C-alpha cells in the first residue's frame, strides 16, 4: 500500500498554511514528518485524516483518491481526544466499533491492547483518573485497536517516560513489520532516526527536503572522516604532515576521536592506506555523516 499526498494547498483565511505539500509513504516503512512548531505538520495530518479539506491537491492510496471508509486508519491526534468521564473499556470498544469492528471483535481487541499496554487493571476506571502518560497509552491503544493499515501518529512520544517510550517503540516497530504504513510527526529526532526510513521536513508550509534518511545524509559531501584510536595524538601530526595538501582541517572531537576534513571525498581511500601503513591502534574509521538534528536545524532555520 502506498499513501501519497499530492500538491496540497491550504489556507485559513488570509494565511497560507500549506504550500504545495507532497510526499509518499509505503507499507512496511515509516515516514517522519518533521518541522518546527507551526510549520504545518498537524494541518497536513488533519488533511490526510479528512478533518478538513485541502484547497487544492489530493490524498491518494495506491493511486486512487483515499476512501477513509474502506481503509482501516489508526489516528492519534496531537491533542489527545478521548472522553475523560467514561470507562476506558467502554470508549475503546466504542471507537473500535466506529472504525468498523463488530462488538465482539472490539471487546477482544480492547482486552488484547490493554494487556499489551499493561493497562488491564485500569479497564473499568474512568480515563480522567489516570496520569497523563497512562492516558497517552490508552490513546495509543485506541489508535491501534482496529489493526490499522495506515497509522498516523501526531507527536506520539510527548509525555511518555523512557520505559513507556520503549513500549511504544516496540509496538510501532511491530506494526511496521506487520506491513502498516506509518506516518508520524515528532520533534524528537532520535525516535525519528530509529524508525523512519524516510523523512519529510516541512518548513513554513513547504516541503524543505524529503526522501530516505540515508539518501539525504549521503547527499551531503562525504569529505569528513572520523578516526577513533588510542593513538589520536600521534595520528593528527602524522596526517597533517603526510597529506598536508589534501587536508583542510584536523580537529579533535572528544577524547579518542579526530575529525579530518579533506578537500575531496575521493581522497578517503588514500587516507585509509596511509593510516593502515603505520602501526596505529585504530578502532574505527568512518565517514562523518550529518546527524538528523543537523539536517533539521539547517533546513528549518529562519531565512533558509
Amino acid at each position, binding site marked *: 500500500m502506498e499513501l501519497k499526498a499530492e500538491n496540497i494547498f491550504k489556507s485559513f483565511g488570509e494565511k497560507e498554511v500549506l504550500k504545495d505539500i507532497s510526499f509518499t509513504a509505503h507499507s512496511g516503512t515509516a515516514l517522519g514528518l518533521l518541522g518546527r512548531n507551526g510549520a504545518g505538520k498537524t494541518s497536513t495530518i488533519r488533511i490526510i485524516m479528512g478533518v478538513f479539506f485541502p484547497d487544492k491537491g*489530493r490524498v491518494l492510496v495506491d493511486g486512487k483518491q483515499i476512501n477513509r471508509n474502506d481503509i482501516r*486508519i489508526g489516528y492519534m491526534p496531537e491533542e489527545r481526544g478521548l472522553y475523560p468521564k467514561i470507562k476506558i473499556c467502554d470508549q475503546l470498544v466504542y*471507537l473500535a466499533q466506529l472504525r468498523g469492528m463488530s462488538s465482539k471483535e472490539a471487546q477482544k481487541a480492547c482486552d488484547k491492547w490493554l494487556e499489551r499496554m499493561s493497562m488491564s487493571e485500569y479497564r473499568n476506571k474512568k480515563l480522567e483518573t489516570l496520569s497523563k502518560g497512562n492516558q497517552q497509552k490508552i490513546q495509543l491503544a485506541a489508535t491501534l485497536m482496529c489493526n490499522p493499515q495506515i497509522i498516523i501518529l501526531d507527536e506520539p512520544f510527548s509525555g511518555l517516560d523512557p520505559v513507556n517510550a520503549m513500549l511504544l517503540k516496540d509496538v510501532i516497530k511491530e506494526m511496521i513489520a506487520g506491513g502498516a504504513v506509518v506516518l508520524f510527526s515528532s520533534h524528537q529526532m532520535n525516535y525519528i532516526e530509529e524508525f523512519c526510513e524516510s523523512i519529510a521536513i516541512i518548513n513554513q508550509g513547504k516541503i524543505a527536503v524529503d526522501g530516505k534518511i540515508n539518501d539525504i545524509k549521503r547527499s551531503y559531501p562525504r569529505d569528513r572522516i572520523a578516526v577513533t584510536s588510542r593513538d589520536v595524538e600521534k595520528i593528527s601530526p602524522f596526517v597533517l604532515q603526510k597529506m598536508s595538501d589534501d587536508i583542510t582541517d584536523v580537529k579533535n572531537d572528544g577524547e579518542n576521536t579526530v575529525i579530518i576534513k579533506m578537500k575531496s571525498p575521493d581522497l578517503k581511500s588514500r587516507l585509509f592506506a596511509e593510516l593502515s601503513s603505520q602501526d596505529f591502534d585504530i578502532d574505527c574509521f568512518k565517514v562523518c555523516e550529518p546527524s538528523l538534528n543537523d539536517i533539521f536545524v539547517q533546513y528549518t532555520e529562519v531565512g533558509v
Partner: protein
Amino acid sequence: MKHILQVLKFEYLNCIKNKAFIITTIILMLLILGTSFVPAIIMDMQSSESEETPGEMNIIGIINNAYDDSDLVTKTFEKYYPHSVVQLTDESIDDVKTKVNDSQYTFGVVLNSPISFTYVTKNNSLMSEETMTIAEAAKSIYRAVNFEKFGVDHERTAAILDAPVIYDTVTTGTDQTKNYFSTYILVMILYMAIVMYGQMVSQSVVTEKNTRAMEMLITCAKPTHLMFGKVIGSGLAGLTQLVVIIGTALVSVKTISMKSLPEGLSDMLTMPVSTVIYALVFFITAYFIYAFLLGSLSSLASRSEDLNTLTTPVMMIFVVAFMIVVMSMTNDINNTLMIVCSYIPFTAPIAMFARIALSDVAFYEIIISIIIQLVSIYLLGMLAAAIYRIGVLMYGNPPKFNEIIKLLKEQHKTNKAIKSKQ
C-alpha cells in the same frame, strides 16, 4: 446507518449511566410520590378537624342594626351557614373585630341597614366568596321583610324566587373546562422536558469538543451520523426518564390520590388516551427541532462558558412559544396567532398540542403541522451536521452569525468540488 446505531447506543448508555441523571430521576420520582399523598393528607386533616370540634370552630358574630326581628336574621343566616353557629350579639363593632382577630369568631357581619353590611374578617383570601353568601343572606332577609309588609307569604315567594335550576352540559366538541388542567400539566412537562434534554445535548457536544474527542470521532464517522446518533440517543434517554417519571405519577395518582380526591378534581386529572399520544408525538418533534438547533450551535462553542451566548436566542424562541400558548389557553385557544404558531416549526409542537387538547382541530391540520415539523427536522438535522462539521476545529471566540453562513457556503463549495472529482 450502522454508525448512527453505534453512536446512539453509546450516547444512550452514557446518559442512562450518568450519576446526575439517575439522581435527578430518583428525586423527581420521590417528589411525585410525595405530592400524590398530599390530597389524601389534606382531606384527612379537614375531616378530622370538623369531627373533633363540632360547632366550636365556626362561630359567626352578627351585629344586627337593621331589623327588629332578630330571629329572622339568625334563621336566615343559619340556613346559609348550616355548619356554623350564628350568634347575634350586642357587642360593639370593635369587640367583634377583636374577637375575629382572636379567632373566637370565624368572621363577623355588621348589618348596618337592610341593604348594607360590613364584613369583618381576619385574613381576606383572594378566592373568598364569603361576601357573596352574606349578600345573598341579607337579600333574603330584605325580601322576606318587605314581602311580609305587602302581605305576601314569604315562604311561598321564597320557593318561587329561589327555585333551584338543575342543568346539564352536553359537549359536542372538546370540553375545555375538563381538559384545561391536564393540558396545562402536559404543556408544562413538554416545555420543561425540551429545555432539559435540549441542554443535555448541547452539554454533551461541548464536552466532546472540549476534550477533543470530536477530532477522533470525526475521523471515524460522518458528522451527519454523529449528530443524528447523538440526538436520538440522548432523546431516547430523556424519553426513558419521562416514561419512568410519568409512569410513577400515573400509578401513584391512580392508587393513592384518586381515592381521596373529590370527583370533580379527579375528573380533571384524567385525560383521553389520544391526548397522551399526541403529547408523545409532539414531544418527539419538538425535541428533535430544538436538539438539532442547540447541538449544532454548541459545537461552535469551545468552552461551556460560551454555551449561553450561543444558545440563548434559541431558548428565547422557545420561551416565547410557551408564553403564547399558555396565555392563549385561558382565552380563545384557536386565535389567529395560535393557528399561525401551530404551523411554524419552532412553535408548532406545543401550539398544536394545546389546540388539539383543548379544542377540535381538523385531522388534516394536524397532519400538515406534523409534516411541516418532520421536514424541518430533516433540514435542521442536515444543517446541524454541517455546522457541527465546521465547529469541530473552531476554537477561540464563538463565531458571529454571518461568519457561520460564510463558512457553510465555503464548505458546501469544497464538498461539491470533491464530489465532482470522485
